[in-house]
């Protein structure tokens, strides 16, 4: 169905001192799809994401963006490519309003002065584009928003910059049922708009509800990258906990082609 991956990693190795966290990891992200990245605690999900985001340099391996090999040596490089990460702890300032948060560090200026009007317009347009209608005023402080609304603002902030890949680190972990549904809907809309979305989650219901592909990490190795429609709940759970499930997964320490 989909064309070439927008972002592709090949043979990524990453060690922290004597501990090798990622072994020869391959990972592809496709435009217009939600790729779920699953794995048990310590499987290397966060490390992989930080490598993609340029926060950790990887030891060896290749990073392809839109077919070209690129070198990402810092968060700025990743942002310049159009890769945005929404972290679990959101990175919003409670004492600033929605517009101020969305433009934080990238404020528009008119001469010496901040161009509040343009920023407000752009923020409004982005939120309308994401069909977000739950926010009363763009000028309310983030401290007065619910968890789901905060997550929405954080995601909208990532989308504002014409990003091509948006990585969400457990966006529903702290949310209630209704808010989770809201955020998952937003995640789906992002992909439908043509963005490549990576969703890190521990919640199998969320993963199966929204993702097109699932990538399962097991002890720092990519156990399998499969289409969501081809697998069942229990197969994914086996991949996460044992690294293999029947024909799928790691066979004698090597990845089987799924």
């Amino acid at each position: 169905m989909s064309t070439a991956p927008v972002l592709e990693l090949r043979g990524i190795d990453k060690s922290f001192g004597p501990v090798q966290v990622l072994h020869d990891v391959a990972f592809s992200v496709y435009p217009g799809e939600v790729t779920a990245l699953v794995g048990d605690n310590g499987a290397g999900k966060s490390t992989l994401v930080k490598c993609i985001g340029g926060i950790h340099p990887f030891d060896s391996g290749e990073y392809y963006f839109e077919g070209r090999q690129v070198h990402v040596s810092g968060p700025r490089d990743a942002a310049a490519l159009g890769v945005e990460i929404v972290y679990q702890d959101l990175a919003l300032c409670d004492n600033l309003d929605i517009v101020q948060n969305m433009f934080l560090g990238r404020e528009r200026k008119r001469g010496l002065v901040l161009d509040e009007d343009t920023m407000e317009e752009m923020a409004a347009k982005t939120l309308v584009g994401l069909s977000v209608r739950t926010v009363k005023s763009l000028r309310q402080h983030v401290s007065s928003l619910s968890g789901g609304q905060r997550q929405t603002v954080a995601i909208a902030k990532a989308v504002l910059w014409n990003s091509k890949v948006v990585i969400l680190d457990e966006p529903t972990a702290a949310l209630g049922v209704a808010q989770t549904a809201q955020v998952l809907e937003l995640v789906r809309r992002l992909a439908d708009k043509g963005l490549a979305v990576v969703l890190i989650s521990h919640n199998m219901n969320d993963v199966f509800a929204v993702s097109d592909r699932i990538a399962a990490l097991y002890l720092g190795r990519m156990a399998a990258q499969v289409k969501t429609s081809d697998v069942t709940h229990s197969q994914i759970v086996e991949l996460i906990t044992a690294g293999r499930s029947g024909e799928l997964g790691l066979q004698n320490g090597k990845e089987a082609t799924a």
Partner: protein
Amino acid sequence: MTTTTAPEEKAVATSAGLNQQVRDYVERVRGGELGALPAVIGLIVLCTVFAILSPVFLSPVNFANLFTQGAGVTVIAMGLVFVLLLGEIDLSAGFASGVCAAFLGVLLTNEGWPWYAAVLAAMLVGVVIGLIIGWLVAKLGIPSFVVTLAAFLAFQGVVLILLDEGTNISIRDSVILAIANENMYPWLGWALVVVGVLAYAGLQLLNNRRRAARGLVADPLSLIAVRVGALAVASGFAVYVLNLERSRNPGVISLTGVPVVVPIILVLLLVWTFVLRRTRFGRHIYAVGGNAEAARRAGINVDRIKISAFVICSFMASVGGIIAASRANSVDPNTGGSNVLLFAVGAAVIGGTSLFGGKGRALDAVLGGAVVAVVINGMGLMGYSSSVKYVVTGAVLLLAAGVDALSRKRASASGRR
């Protein structure tokens, strides 16, 4: 998402808008965002009490005294707002102002420098002090409490060294003395009111037009009218009273007009308000104070912001020191000492600046400075001993910090509903 871009909502934005604004304000106050409310209420209550207890309090002479008494503390508090916005503290601001004042005195009186050179040198000393403190806090990572406590002690010594173990240097330069002791021509005071009110009204209307033209939510005209009206009445009344004759013997010497420190404070207030509200630097100060990690991830240079906040604070302390020297006509080891720092921190916090960072305005320092000035002045008039003054000052500071902590609790309780 806001639906106010719809044309039918804009059409009713004038008259219904004011009610909505008032309702929003009440809701904000209930939610713990008190803003200037405690300072304004405190000012009204204190003024009423002192006016009843001591008839002199409301006399034009005393009204003018309030401004010169509160000026130094207000200016230092304005600088402290920047440090408090980051959730840091500068305990050395009082004695930093003393050090700068001592430099001023030595250069002016002992070395015979012209006033502008001495003032620039004193301000430069303030900037250097801020750079050192800011560097120690941001780069070395020593808690600001410890760094500035050390500086607090050290600067007392520096003042003594500069003043040759405690001699008193008198200031004779007429320009420096004019800052806290002279008044403006009465007509100049009125001109200031007219220009200020017109400029404020013009800016507000311009902003309103621009936002309305782009289909954004604009403040209703009625609200603008209320704001401009309030400014006109308050400033008009102040200038009227200050322009009354307040000399005991008008035949010999006339004493009228707005004290020269008032326009100085107004200019500083405008500059720092502009910086905090309209520039990228100001936005980043709030961001670092609200969530330093988020600011760092957004690509903001947190260390640079921290250092500049301490530089601004010490610079403002130097200005406060110059005003204090002018008011006392001299510099002595107590300039900027005793409870200047406590008054300044108290002024910022009473005005509505949070000790927890992320919340505060330059205006807070002026409002809180007014409260502090009224407390000092009123108790002086009542003839209380210094023991009572210390206790009351401590209580006021604690009360302000308590209001801050409670409103913060309330805000987090209502914010995460």
